[in-house]
């Protein structure tokens, strides 16, 4: 009894891993067999691969006990100060922060919670254990919430699954509804990630929200929030140095990534040294606001100086002094796999260059505006010149995290132009000197 399947595959292309790919198997030509179900002697057929609906139903059955979990911190929660919480998002962040002080993430992403009591006792647990505890806490606060199951990016794209099963997913996070009826998500694993900000591996275009009270499910995305980086940099030339004051604002993933990096160094002096070395600058002042768990808004105010190339009568200045997108990451001429970006983001940088007394602008940089055919990726670079000021506004926006290989040449071209623009040089010369 059974079905015999014979498959013959010709010209299977080899595949190698690449940058900007999270799971290379997603692009590998393959023939996949999945167990549809099984018979055990004396029992009925047990289906495994089924519909998404059945899978979600199975999750509800498996999670039954955990979803009715009694909040283990009910008593302690009375001491949480919610007074400064302006909205549901703040309250959820506050609960997650409280939880991270009682249970530490053990480095494991999981989808179930088998050791709940042990985790509370040992102050350590998987992300799913922490997320289930958070659900119990949010329920006590009257916040509507439920699990959101995810297939992390390194595990593969959920949309490629043809035969849904429980193993299509490898972790879960918490989805909750704010007072305006909008849905948000949070994962308790690492306390740098707050509401709607997730570890890169969890930012997916397809996840399934399981409403355990109604038993329904819906497909959603965890890549909805635009992360931004805004920089305002004021540059003056003093003693053959560029003296700069910068005001930088980071939100979303940019804020989380900054915080993660800062925490890894965990030493403000070392942090300053690292930034100084990286950009070849001398930092005289650094003030960072918003460095706290699950912060979604970080503001950096800094003053720094750097050497500039000059002769007796000429100053050469590269305005994109601390621009990190100075290299095109797409080196290969061609590509056989799509390009996956970590998240959608936008960066705006405003440079104001003060022309020093006795100098005049000898040659400047030119505007550039470029975008791809679908308008998802754009770079605008504008220059305005007044008496003694040169103002440059550079805007980069990427609203898509997945580009097909057919779009690769456009992508490479745009990044080439961007990298080139970032190395533009402004020349200032002493007045009344002919060169």
């Amino acid at each position, binding site marked *: 009894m059974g079905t015999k399947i014979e498959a013959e595959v010709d010209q299977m292309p080899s595949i190698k891993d690449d940058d900007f790919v999270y799971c290379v198997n997603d692009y590998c030509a393959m023939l996949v067999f999945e167990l549809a179900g099984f018979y055990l002697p004396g029992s009925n057929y047990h289906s495994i691969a089924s519909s998404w609906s059945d899978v979600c139903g199975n999750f509800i059955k498996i999670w039954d006990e955990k979803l009715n979990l009694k909040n283990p911190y009910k008593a302690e929660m009375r001491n949480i100060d919610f007074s400064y919480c302006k909205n549901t998002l703040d309250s959820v962040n506050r609960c997650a922060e409280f939880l991270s002080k009682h249970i530490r993430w053990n480095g494991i992403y999981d989808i179930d919670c088998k050791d709940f009591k042990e985790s509370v006792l040992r102050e350590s647990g998987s992300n799913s254990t922490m997320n289930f505890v958070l659900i119990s806490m949010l329920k006590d606060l009257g916040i509507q919430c439920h699990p959101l199951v995810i297939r992390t990016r390194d595990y593969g794209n959920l949309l490629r699954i043809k035969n849904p099963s429980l193993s299509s997913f490898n972790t879960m996070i918490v989805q909750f509804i704010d007072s305006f009826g909008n849905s948000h998500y949070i994962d308790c694993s690492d306390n740098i990630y707050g509401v709607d900000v997730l570890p890169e591996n969890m930012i997916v275009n397809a996840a399934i929200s399981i409403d355990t009270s109604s038993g329904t499910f819906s497909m959603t995305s965890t890549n909805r929030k635009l992360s931004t980086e805004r920089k305002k940099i004021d540059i003056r030339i003093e003693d053959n140095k560029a003296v700069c004051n910068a005001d930088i604002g980071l939100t979303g993933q940019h804020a989380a990534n900054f915080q993660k990096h800062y925490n890894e160094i965990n030493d403000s002096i070392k942090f300053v040294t690292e930034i100084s070395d990286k950009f070849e600058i001398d930092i005289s002042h650094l003030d960072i606001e918003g460095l706290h768990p699950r912060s979604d808004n970080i503001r950096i105010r800094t003053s720094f100086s750097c050497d500039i190339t*000059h002769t007796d009568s000429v100053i050469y200045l590269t305005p994109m002094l601390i621009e990190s997108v100075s290299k095109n990451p797409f080196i290969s001429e061609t590509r056989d796999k799509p390009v996956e970006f970590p998240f959608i983001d936008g960066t705006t940088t405003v440079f104001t260059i003060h022309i020093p007394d006795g100098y005049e602008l000898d040659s400047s940089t030119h505007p550039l505006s470029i975008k791809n055919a679908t308008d998802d990726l754009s770079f605008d670079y504008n220059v305005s010149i007044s008496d003694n000021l040169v103002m440059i506004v550079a805007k980069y926006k990427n609203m898509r995290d997945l580009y097909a290989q057919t779009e690769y040449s456009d992508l490479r071209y745009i990044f080439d132009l961007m990298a080139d623009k970032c190395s533009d040089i402004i020349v200032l010369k002493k007045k009344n000197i002919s060169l």
Partner: protein
Amino acid sequence: MKRNLVLTTIVIFTTFLIKAVNIDIPVLPDSLTRGANSIVLNDHTNIQVTNISTATISRIRSLMIVNEKGEAHADFKIMLDKSTLLKRFKGSIYDSTGNIIFEIGKNDLTSSEYSPYLAVDNVICSYDLNMASYPFIVTYEWEERKTGDILSYPTFDPVEFDSQSLVNNSYSIHIPQDMGCRHLALNCIPKINEERTMGWVSYKFELPHFSALENVEYSPEARQIVPMVMMNPILFEAGGVRGKLSSWKEMGIWLTKLGEGQDLLTTEQIQKVNELTSDCKTNREKVKALYEHLRNTTRYVNISLGIGGLRPERASDVATRGFGDCKALSNYMCAMLRAIGLPAEYVVISTDRETIYKDYASFGQFNHAVMRVPLPNDTIWLECTAPTLPFGYIHSKISGHEALVVDGENSRIVKVPERKLDGPEIHKKYWVEFTSDASAYSIVEETFRGKYFEAEHRFKQTSVKDLQERARKETQLTSALLPNGCYSEDTSESPKCKFTYNFFAPQYGKVDDKRIFVPCNMFGWSFNKYTHHQRTLPLNIPYKTVYYDITIKIPEGYRIEALPADVTETSDICSFIQQVNVSDRLIHITQSLQFNKGMYPADISQRFAEITSIMVKQLSSKIVFVK
């Protein structure tokens, strides 16, 4: 007396057990808390050697984890194998005030036999401890029982991580007097107590307190700075062969005995070896022919099962199967050479330490096997696990290292010759000229020697496309068009490899209405300066020599507006010399960088920082042409 020793052991451990449930947080001096991510409060090891093949190791290790950076220090990890069993384990976790939070037992440990190698019999038993708040204290108590081959006793190195300080510690060993043991203390003068009674000898070591050391760039290796005591039996037995570890010679004698009979080949295999060398005119040619055979018919896989971690596989089996580890392949090569009457010596060596402790023989100082052919006036060293390397090439992982020639009574320590280079390790030469839009046409030649030859040598078997991609990465010219790309190798006395390519790069320089800006050195981006911190550790500098030879044609209609100057910066630790010449509308720049291998005192770090800063600035400087 034996009974007394057991009683003493019980008393000691009962004391510790009582402490485990009523833990007091000690008041520690600043010197031990400064810069520490974790503090080893107690580390007490007790080894009871019953006989040549049985020992019990009991240990208590208690740590204060100060902050998140010390999180990994709290984990428990132990390596077990067929002859090492974990008899007892208990872990206790306390909060910062000394109150117990929870305890763990043997069942909480995770076992993993995962290994990247083909066959090893090690099992890693571990517990990953994550706590929500800091500081906390963790105490592990465990007992291992070793039966069978005991080649060494655990090294006492309680400082296992950087930024970890050490407080109370002891290491006791009780051993039958007729077995004897030897020890070697490194980086410290331990307090030693020795007792001899009724056929037993006991040693107790205590290391001085140790302040946390930060891991900074160019730090010496841990074994060069961290206090430790190494401990070995003098008399031992493994693989059914009894031996002595009183000297390197004795160790060589034992390894010889262990390998006896392993270098035999079958009649057919010997016949094959004779056929392969029948046309060779000299002994060197014969060695080369057999090395070629080894290269073409075998591959390296790591096999470390039991005594197989020390005894090479039978040469005849390697010949049949076509694979083996470093011991097996080296022994097989020895066997082939001996089969045709040529001398061949099996050699054990370390790939990560240059020198060995001359007066302290131990197996742990070696991790690799090679072989050598002592022909008259021409000793050939052969690495049998990397068949793509040229014949007789002494690679950077063994060059200049001390090694043990395993040759019975003639076993001895020798030094592998230092590899000689006939030029800088990295030599990049290019010629470049520009169009009016600052696009560039260039001819490039990159030559690599020594360890850089070994690293780049992988391109020997790659496609032109890969070579072109490599060139784009090296030059950082992502839009460069490369019509060709060539890799060539010179495998003579001083091997080197060379990449040659031409490119046309649309965005090589920047251009505006009047000027063209071009990088002084398109490869100059790859260096970082050393940042001078308040350094206390010596600088451990590896050898490196780089030479750039750049010719830039001044574009028609332009003249030079800005050009880097000549620079000469030299010191004991490194040097940078830049020379710039202009003639016939050609700019010729040479840049020479040299890092001199050695261990330098911390106070030289400021000068090192200055020179590397100048180096980086000059390498990334620009040339400006103006109309």
